[in-house]
């Protein structure tokens, strides 16, 4: 019976062990961990009257980097009598795989290439011309898939044909594999050393290994002095070893580029089409703006629906406390519960829905395109593109949004973005604008409050840009591929963003409500009416409105209830439309509440946080009074 000994060589994770199993049957376990075959595994199989011994070697990237695995492979390769080697090549990284092929071809060992992952490559739009590669390398190539056993029989067939009497084939030139050609000075040195080589191994190969400073190969030299002689006169090229590997790598990448063609996939093509629209200089920003507007329409609609249901429930719940209303503790408790109800019924559905929609946009891949589009405009007011997400989150709840400014790379940028939360109305402030200004003063008035916020914010941002010089963070953003969102991921992400709100903000809302209850019962709220009357006079509002304006800071959701409690439920009779508008502006511009202040302290320290909060509130009051006066002129 004839015998054949065949070596399997390849990079880690190239599917070598799977191929080994496919060839000899499941005699070794296949595991996904890199470097599974630390030892050499051998197995024999009888095919067509021939006994083939397959030898599985450890996964290696080359035979020059001197790791343990490479040493093992090298010793099997040269010290055992092998008839040929099957090199498994990864179609997904042809370049890297070809390096080792070229190295083994230098050793003049008969080689067959088993091309793995060809289907995967095709799926990714990488087309490899196998015939061309076969011709270039002058080595047979078999495309395989060890998992489906595709090409395995053919591989064995080719091996039987190719590996019998390989020496004759190599000598008569019918199977002379591709040889890397090195620079003239290296070739000269190779030739020189070749003359001193003894033994069975190819002379050129030994010479190259010696020049690559592989000391294991010095033993094949008749006279070691030849190395120094060969290197003499090459002083201008002190790094021969490196030059050799660079040339080999260069040749590998040259061959790879000759036989590979990248075809844009259908998906990629359609993705480009979408990008051409979404990132268009006019359509892009327009779509971004309209989408955000649409999201708000959806939110207001859905938010109102859930709010009505939840409000009904909490009111029922609160009315069951009527009996205790007249005790002091009962009154404090009721304010606390009202605060809690405000948090849950107004903010929770709104904030959660909003964060959910935002997460959805993010996972579909659209949000990053929106960031690119808005960056142009944010840059004009001195903000980095990445501040877009925290600013958007600010429309939900300011407190978690302040934490979200951490995505920005510097504390300065972070603080500047956070300062704008004075003008980005959170859900509670939107509730004031819609529920009080809109409800008692009409849609136009509510819209004017939003518009005033934007104008005040722009003036603020330009002012900061003018006076504080911060080098702008340039646009650098990954654009993920468009994909179908996984609802589970979106929920998880929304929950992470919600966490602060649920665990921190909601309990504090209840506490804020209770604190207000205590102040109200003890009559302390009325103390501030007189000393703060200059402010209400500046705002052109009744003196009692200072109570919701100031104590709204404890619990923003209670602002409306406080207003009703001080001036009665007939707001449209008690206040003129301009007063309603001024109240809306004064209560929504500025860092909104004590919870946001706490978050600011947490991020930026007590001093910076309080200065920002007080300044922003004064700015809001100034602005509201000024606008009211300007309007009154007409």
């Amino acid at each position, binding site marked *: 019976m004839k015998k054949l000994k065949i070596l399997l060589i390849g990079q880690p994770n190239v599917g070598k062990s799977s191929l080994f199993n496919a060839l000899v049957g499941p005699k070794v376990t296949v595991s996904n961990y890199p470097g599974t075959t630390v030892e050499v595994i051998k197995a024999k199989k009888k095919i067509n009257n021939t006994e083939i011994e397959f030898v599985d070697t450890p996964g290696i990237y080359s035979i020059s980097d001197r790791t343990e695995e490479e040493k093992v492979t090298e010793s099997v390769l040269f010290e055992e009598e092998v008839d040929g080697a099957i090199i498994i090549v990864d179609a997904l990284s042809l370049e890297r795989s070809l390096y080792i092929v070229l190295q083994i071809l230098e050793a003049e060992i008969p080689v067959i290439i088993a091309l793995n992952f060809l289907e995967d490559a095709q799926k990714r739009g990488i087309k490899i011309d196998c015939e061309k590669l076969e011709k270039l390398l002058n080595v047979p190539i078999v495309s395989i898939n060890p998992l489906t056993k595709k090409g395995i029989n053919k591989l064995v067939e080719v091996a039987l044909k190719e590996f019998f009497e390989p020496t004759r084939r190599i000598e008569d030139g019918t199977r002379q594999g591709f040889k890397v050609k090195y620079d003239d000075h290296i070739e000269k040195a190779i030739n020189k050393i070749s003359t001193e080589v003894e033994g069975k191994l190819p002379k050129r190969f030994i010479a190259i290994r010696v020049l690559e400073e592989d000391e294991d190969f010095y033993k094949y030299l008749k006279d070691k002095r030849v190395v120094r002689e060969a290197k003499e006169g090459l002083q201008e090229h002190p790094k021969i070893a490196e030059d050799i590997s660079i040339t080999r790598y260069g040749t590998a990448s040259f061959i790879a580029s000759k036989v590979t063609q990248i075809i844009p996939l259908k998906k990629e093509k359609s993705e480009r089409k979408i990008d051409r629209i979404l990132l268009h*200089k006019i359509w892009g920003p327009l779509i971004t703006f309209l989408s955000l507007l649409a999201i708000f329409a959806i939110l207001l609609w859905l938010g109102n629906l859930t709010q009505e249901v939840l409000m009904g429930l909490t009111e029922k719940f609160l009315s069951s406390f009527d009996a205790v209303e007249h005790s002091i503790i009962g009154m404090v408790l009721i304010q606390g519960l009202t605060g809690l109800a405000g948090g849950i019924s107004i903010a929770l559905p709104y904030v959660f829905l909003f964060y959910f929609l935002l997460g959805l946009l993010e996972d579909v891949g659209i949000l990053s395109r929106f960031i*690119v589009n808005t960056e142009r405009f944010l840059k004009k007011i001195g903000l980095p593109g990445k501040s877009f997400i925290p600013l958007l989150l600010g429309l939900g709840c300011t407190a978690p949004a302040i934490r979200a400014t951490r995505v920005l790379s510097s504390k300065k940028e972070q603080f500047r973005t956070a300062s704008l939360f004075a003008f980005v109305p959170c859900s509670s402030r939107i509730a004031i604008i819609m529920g009080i200004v809109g409800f008692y003063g009409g849609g136009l008035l509510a819209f004017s409050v939003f518009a005033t916020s934007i104008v005040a914010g722009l003036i603020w941002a330009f002012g900061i840009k003018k006076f504080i010089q911060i080098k702008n963070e340039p*646009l650098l953003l990954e654009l993920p591929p468009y994909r179908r969102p996984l609802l589970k991921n979106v929920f998880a992400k929304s929950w992470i963003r919600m966490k602060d709100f649920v665990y921190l903000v909601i309990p504090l809302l209840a506490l804020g409500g209770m604190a207000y209850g205590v102040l109200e019962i003890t009559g302390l709220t009325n103390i501030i009416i007189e000393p703060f009357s200059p402010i209400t006079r500046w705002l052109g509002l009744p003196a009692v409105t200072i109570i919701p304006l100031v104590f709204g800071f404890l619990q923003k959701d209670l602002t409306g209830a406080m207003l009703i409690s001080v001036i009665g439920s007939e707001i449209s009779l008690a206040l003129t439309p301009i007063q309603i508008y001024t109240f809306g502006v004064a209560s929504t511009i500025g860092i909104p509440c004590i919870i946001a202040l706490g978050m600011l302290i947490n991020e930026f320290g007590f001093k910076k946080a309080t200065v920002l909060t007080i300044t922003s509130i004064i700015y809001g009051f100034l602005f509201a009074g000024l606008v009211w006066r300007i309007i009154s002129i007409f």
Partner: protein
Amino acid sequence: MNEEPDILKIVKEDILKVVGGKDEKIPLKSIEVDTAVSSSIVSEAIKELKEEGLIEISSEKETGEEYIQLTKEGRVRANVIIKKHDILEEYFKERRSEEEAIKAADILEHYISIEVINTIKKLNTFKDKGIPLTEFKQEEGLITDINLNIELFERIVSMGICPGEKIRIIGQIPNGIIIEVKNKKFALDKEIARKMKVLEYEKA
């Protein structure tokens, strides 16, 4: 949105590099001085390196001082990192001051693959150092340099945009340029594109 650079991985590699740079075992304490990060991360990194069998900790009987030493496998890993660093340092020395070259190599060594290191080696032999990305007209090229301040450099290489990588230009946008590196798409500021040098792929 952005992945944080894996600090633990970086610290682990830095420790291997520091220990690997010396022949004998070195006192555990001196590690914390060499790498400028919090000591809890350093001890976490040392713990993991030990579990992975890359280092050994021994304590001296008399003084009780602990020493750190590389195992055989750890030595191999350390050599790879040191080699990467040397190649990168040499590469950047051709392009900027020595001090900046070392800084750039210190960062890039943690992010660059062996494959790309090979390209870097090859690029080092070229006279052609490439042209700014903003002036580049072909569709495909090879990034030869990214000359940004250190923080921005670290951010960009941690996203996978490294010298030695292939780059594809996808399109222009009003505020920048859309590129593809390693099958990932990015929007880049014009400011960054100007400081990035690219070589025609055919020439490479």
